[in-house]
């Protein structure tokens, strides 16, 4: 039995407004899903519901064949609009903190987390390791936030507009990392306006109710 992310009958209300209802999805290990649709249709809300940050109005989310001790959200990496970086700490201090703080979603031979240095090298910001994060450019901050996904092994990546503020080269690098993650049996759900830099990706298009 392979790991699966299963959501059934999901509905979400925010501020009294029904964002989406009766949404169901199943993703097997190694699969990616792009959530598309116009602004305000609830792409980000769906990701936050999957992450466990917003309680769904109805429905359930579970990880089949995951760690029974952990909730679905604790299997996930959430890569949102905010970088969760402290400008006063150095680049490595920021990354080291999340490395020790985030509990790994699953310990298995197929997920080999990188060390913080390796992750910075993989994203091309290892030269800035000892500098305060305040000195990074917007794109570098995005990449440092991305490094978090590489140092702690979690099977599900929830990416909200993952390519924003990244240049073409970084975007290609992100594509490689996502492919590696899928090849290792990971799952990716990404809310995006652009085509994902991936070979094979399913699409879930959210439409505003007519």
């Amino acid at each position, binding site marked *: 039995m392979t790991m699966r992310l299963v959501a059934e009958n999901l509905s979400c209300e*925010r501020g009294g407004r029904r964002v989406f209802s009766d949404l169901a999805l199943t993703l097997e290990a190694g699969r990616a899903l792009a959530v598309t649709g116009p602004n305000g249709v609830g792409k980000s809300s769906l990701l936050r519901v999957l992450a466990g*940050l917003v309680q769904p109005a109805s429905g359930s989310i579970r990880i089949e064949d995951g760690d029974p001790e952990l909730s679905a959200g604790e299997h996930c990496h959430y890569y949102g609009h*905010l970088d969760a970086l402290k400008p006063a700490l150095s680049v490595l201090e920021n990354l080291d*903190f999340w490395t020790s*703080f985030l509990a790994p979603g699953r310990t298995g031979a197929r997920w080999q987390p990188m060390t913080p240095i390796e992750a910075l090298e993989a994203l091309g910001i290892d030269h800035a390791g000892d500098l305060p994060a305040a000195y990074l450019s917007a794109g570098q901050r995005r990449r440092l936030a991305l490094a978090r996904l590489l140092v702690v092994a979690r099977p599900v990546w929830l990416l909200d507009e993952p390519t924003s503020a990244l240049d073409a080269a970084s975007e290609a690098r992100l594509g490689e990392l996502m492919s590696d993650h899928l090849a290792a049996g990971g799952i990716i759900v990404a809310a995006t306006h652009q085509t994902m830099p991936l070979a094979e990706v399913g699409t879930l298009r959210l439409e505003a109710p007519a």
Partner: protein
Amino acid sequence: MSGWMGALFLRELRLSLRVGGGALIGVLFFLAVITVIPFGVGPDLNLLALIGPAVLWIGALLATLLGLDRLFQADRDDGSLDLMLMAGRPLEVLVLVKCLAHWVGTGLPLVLSAPVLSIFLNLEPLAIGAVALTLLVGTPALTLIGAIGAALTVSLRRGGLLLAVLVVPFSIPVLIFGVSASGAAVTEPTPFLTPFLLLAALTLISAVVGPVAAAMALRFSSD
């Protein structure tokens, strides 16, 4: 198991001591409060010695409460709080560690500066020791109770003042036993130990109630 707590503690402490952190501003605020009191009540040294322990306690209370508004808000603003909620770590322990680090960064300097400020208020050595000791035991309770207010107001723009309003009623018992213990140390017949032990009990109770209530409020705040 303890690795992540150490990492969190170090991070919080570093943040409070580096640029933009509030560690020394709390002490400065404490000094400012103590300095304006004599302008209000007059420079009579006997009077100041009489009200000194109370003044120091109220100064420490205000400095603690006003320094707490960014306890969770800073993490919410940059997205760290989302990740903390998803971290797979017990949220109550997380709050406790954050409070502990916050107290070491901002509360402990208040306790250490209290003896110096006592000189301005003409306290005797015995009273200085009593005030410092009661502050050492009692200020963690203020931080832990204040954490509840900080968690409740985490999503509000003007949370700081509201936090103080919300939390002041709950901090009254701490103030009462803190001041009466420091007073009892100087005035002979009244026993010091009774209010002091009650103060210690209040701190221990807040170490349970504060993190549990704050964690609950943080879970509801995420949206």
